[in-house]
């Protein structure tokens, strides 16, 4: 479904964001991309969307080499890629329904399709009752659910999530992960960049760790960090039920960093 073949990306000013990366992700996988800020996680997602161009190598998405696509085909590539961000990116003057419908409207879907699919996906994310609310009237977790509904309403092959729980408390994050898990079970490949150790540890899915533009770990059913430097629960101030539970889950693994263990107690 997604393949990086020796991909190198250097930004102007000779900052190497990714150097000679090779990754292969099959259809239906759930993959975490972890790493410190500036390690190249977001670059990875931007390359998939062709927001940025690569310097060398090849990227394949759904059987197409995306750097070879002509510009006018890029929108059609993006229709296969749903996107969720830390800051939700909802339109504040549109209702929940309109926000989700907008994604279909602007790719020219007929009105009947919109009025059939939007309520369906809102039910899926558990916001069927709040379709007439404005984003301001929703909690952060609910706003992220709207964003996920918008990303998923067109049934993309792949869902990209760039720190989707970065602005949410642990309990809410758990709910969002449950939702992403459900979406993954429909056969959608999910690629999630995150700093949230507790969530990675709880989910026990494939983990790809990037450091200074290199893949330093690619682990099936992995956890967040193997060494102390990368195991932080950034963005979550208090130790809550969920992170405690996550840590209990992974107590069996001696690989947990010391700093992380300290937090759990």
């Amino acid at each position: 479904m997604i393949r990086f073949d020796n991909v190198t990306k250097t930004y102007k000013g000779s900052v190497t964001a990714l150097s000679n990366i090779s990754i292969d992700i099959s259809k239906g996988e759930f993959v975490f991309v972890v790493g410190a800020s500036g390690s190249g996680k977001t670059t990875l997602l931007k390359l998939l969307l062709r927001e940025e161009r690569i310097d060398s190598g090849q990227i394949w998405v759904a059987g197409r080499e995306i750097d070879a696509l002509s510009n006018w085909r890029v929108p059609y590539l993006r229709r296969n890629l749903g996107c969720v961000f830390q800051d939700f990116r909802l339109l504040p003057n549109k209702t929940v329904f309109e926000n989700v419908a907008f994604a279909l409207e602007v790719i020219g879907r007929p009105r009947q399709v919109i009025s059939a699919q939007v309520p369906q996906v809102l039910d899926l994310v558990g916001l069927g009752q709040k379709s007439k609310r404005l984003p301001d009237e929703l909690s952060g977790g609910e706003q992220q659910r709207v964003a996920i509904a918008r990303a998923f309403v067109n049934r993309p092959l792949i869902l990209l999530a760039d720190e989707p729980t970065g602005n949410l408390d642990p309990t809410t994050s758990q709910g969002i992960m449950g939702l992403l898990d459900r979406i993954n079970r429909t056969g959608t490949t999910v690629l999630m960049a995150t700093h949230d150790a507790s969530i990675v540890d709880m989910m026990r899915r494939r983990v790809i760790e990037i450091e200074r533009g290199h893949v330093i770990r690619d682990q099936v059913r992995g956890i967040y960090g193997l060494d102390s430097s990368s195991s932080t629960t950034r963005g979550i101030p208090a130790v809550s039920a969920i992170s405690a539970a996550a840590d209990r889950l992974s107590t069996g693994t001696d690989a947990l960093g010391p700093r992380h263990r300290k937090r759990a107690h």
Partner: protein
Amino acid sequence: MPISAGYVVRETASNLWRNRLMALAAILTVGVSLSLVGTALLLRQSVNSQLAALGDNVDLQIFMKPTAPLGDTNAIQTTARETSQIKRCNYLNHQQSYEQMVALFKSQPSIIKVLTPATTPPVFQCTLVHPKDASAVANLFNTQAGVYEVTFPAQSIRTLIALSNVLQVVLFTIAVVLLMSAVVLILMAIRMAIFARRREVAVMRLVGATAWFIRLPFMVEGLVQGLLGAVVAVGIVLLGDIGIRTLLHRFSEFQSAVVPGHDVIVTEILVVIVGMVVGVVGSAVAVRRFLTV
């Protein structure tokens, strides 16, 4: 991919309304500059139509009294032939003179109605060797028996042409400067609209809206601003044209200067096209420069 007309109309209308002050400034600037363009074009046509009506080689017209005896007319003809400043003269009798009047005033039937061949003065239309001698030669004939009036139309037309040429240059220059500022104003209006809708644009790119789907409402917004400006200009030019017609009725000498309705329509169409071009150019530059798709 089909782009629904309803979507474009809705987006354009809401953009224009949200940005209405800027849009108004752009529209009025287009309107004023295009009405100058229209006026200059009408002025040019009006002078041309004067020339066409009379012929630009008629330097001197000697009108006889309608009742002048044939002897007087013959005497004038002889004098004209003997005057060295006159190159040649063309004599129109009552009937011919009447026919020319009918041709000149065909746009004003009220005038033709009161004319008859009998009351229309016969006229000598003369070409001079040096057109600037017109007034001197006119004095020669003014005092002759049977002469009603001597006019020198070519000279006044030439003065008029010189005047109108200067006026046209001035009008066109101002119009071009204003049109450039109109393009910039539309560009800025579209830029502001793009900025106001940056969130929507970001989402549209993300979910895979095509480049033209994202651009089109902004392009149409510019086009509409140019078009509305042109409508303002068309109104001003039409009003001005009617005003000039009314004014000219008082000075019958210039009646042939009135531009026939047909030419006004051509001018207005030209004004509308220029307005659309201004709008499209302004928004195209803004879209290229400020909209990432």
